[in-house]
């Protein structure tokens, strides 16, 4: 199904992805933060981005020339927070000791960029990240900058009209530095995403909107790297990443209860064992 036969993923990134999954599961159990399965489906994508592709770093969070990544599916923020902590944007203790009941910074959605360097948009309402990214891409072109703008969408998020408004404009404006990755985990909050609306055929929709559009296995880091670093045409790029909601933990995979459920300590331990993080 994937058009890209990947080179083997760098072991470093595979290990990072496993470690991230373990932390995300543990955090969800400790803090009772939901949307766990939605976080797990995009871990490999986030690892590829933050530990290889993106020219971002804690000391250049305000650099106008930095690459920008927007988590438009904002409810995967618990995954992004773990990534940013691992990448040194803030001390991990701040995340683990955040006070969820009384004014912490780390909840279920990203705070504003002003609140947390490394965040490019305070998403949480769906369909906002891509339009904002189009604005950032237009600004980049006006300013002559060559930075990447990459946006992670949910498949359910593609229900929102603003996604398609932004998509039509981006192609019309030939925003070739703009990339969308759709975390196509086949579920939204209450139903399978291809049953709520006629979402499929998804890659064809993006092509019809005049984007370059490809499909990949969203858990194949090697393939993701290849796709996301390939030479670009003058069109924006949509990467339809086929993923599994809850990926990495066998008893969570493709089970939409894990959209809401948080794991017990026993489940956290079982997950970490499966991920090879404990024996």
């Amino acid at each position, binding site marked *: 199904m994937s058009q890209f036969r990947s080179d083997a993923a760098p072991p470093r990134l595979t290990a990072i992805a496993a470690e991230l999954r373990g932390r995300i599961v543990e955090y969800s159990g400790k803090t009772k933060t939901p949307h766990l399965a939605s976080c797990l489906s995009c871990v490999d994508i986030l690892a590829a981005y933050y530990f290889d592709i993106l020219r971002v770093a804690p000391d250049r969070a305000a650099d106008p020339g930095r690459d920008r990544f927007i988590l438009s599916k904002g409810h995967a923020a618990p995954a992004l927070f773990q990534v940013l902590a691992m990448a040194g944007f803030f001390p991990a203790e701040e995340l683990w000791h955040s006070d969820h009941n009384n004014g912490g910074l780390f909840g279920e959605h990203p705070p504003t960029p002003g609140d947390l360097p490394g965040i490019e948009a305070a998403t949480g309402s769906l369909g906002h990240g891509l339009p904002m990214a189009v604005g950032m891409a237009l600004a980049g072109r006006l300013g002559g900058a060559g930075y990447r703008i990459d946006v992670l969408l949910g498949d359910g998020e593609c*229900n929102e009209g603003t996604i398609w408004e932004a998509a039509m404009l981006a192609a019309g404006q030939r925003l070739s530095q703009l990339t969308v990755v759709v975390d196509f985990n086949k579920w939204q909050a*209450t139903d399978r995403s291809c049953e*709520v609306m006629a979402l499929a055929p998804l890659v064809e929709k993006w092509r019809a909107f005049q984007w370059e559009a490809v499909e990949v296995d969203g858990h194949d880091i090697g393939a993701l790297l290849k796709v996301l670093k390939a030479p670009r045409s003058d069109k924006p790029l949509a990467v339809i990443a086929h993923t599994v909601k809850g990926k990495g933990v066998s008893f969570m995979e493709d089970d939409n209860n894990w959209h809401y459920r948080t794991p017990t300590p026993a489940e956290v331990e079982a997950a970490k064992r499966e991920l090879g993080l404990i024996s």
Partner: protein
Amino acid sequence: MRNSFADALHEAAVEDDRVVLLSGDIGNRLFDRTKAVAANRVINVGIAEQNMMGVAAGMALSGYRPVVYTITPFTTYRCFEQIRVDVCYHEAPVVIVGTGSGLSYASLGPTHHSMEDIALLRTLPGMTVFCPACPLEVGAGLRAALAHDGPVYIRLGKKGEPNLHDAVPQITLGKAITMQDGSDVCLIATGPVVGLAMDAAKMLAKAGISARVENFHTVKPLDVARLDEITARYRAVVVIEEHGRIGGLFGAIAEWMAPREGARPVLAGVGAEDKFLHKVGSQEFARSYFGISTEAIVDQVRRALHT
């Protein structure tokens, strides 16, 4: 409150086969019972709220009674123009239900707060704005909304709200409920914070101040007959809402009061300042952050009475 809503929606859908629930990919399991008996009238229209509202208008104009349901900011702000034009301008009898209103979803951050919705919705000609104070008021409110031949916005809490009545109250849209009588000051509240007002009244009683508590579940149309009576009787009125200070119930009452002749009470409000909360926390934390608390109510009463 959402469970009461699901129960009430079920009863309504069973009784009246014009009732249709349109949900924005939310309400996991909540409507299973209704789906089991009326699958074609429980429709997940996906995460697309502007479309959802237009769809609701179209169904209403075709003789159905659609009930639109998702988290409050998405069923109000996201599709406000559709509410204005497709629903209100067309006088389409759509029931718009926002769940998790005010700061109910404080843990999810400001994208999921709704502190401006009462203000927004009441600006629309033909709209009725109903804020149940507790689960017991939800069913009666939904029935009243469905019996009303025009659009109605129902502003629900989320869960865990204590019941404030001993039994299901009579709900007439536009008619306030006196929760308890008092002689020194009148507290007017809407939504679950009616409970805060009642707690504040207890605190005031200990300090020798007798407070009446009015449940203005309907912000539009305002119960002006009740307001006439209140302004004649009290020298201080404090308005409480889990909403911003701009344009909510306080604003509505101030607008009504401003042009009136004759003596008027001191009018004070307890509501959120004009700022976003950039942190996450419990609803209690968020209310406290915005000064929506029994202490704040007591403080406003004392200032208004100069005690």
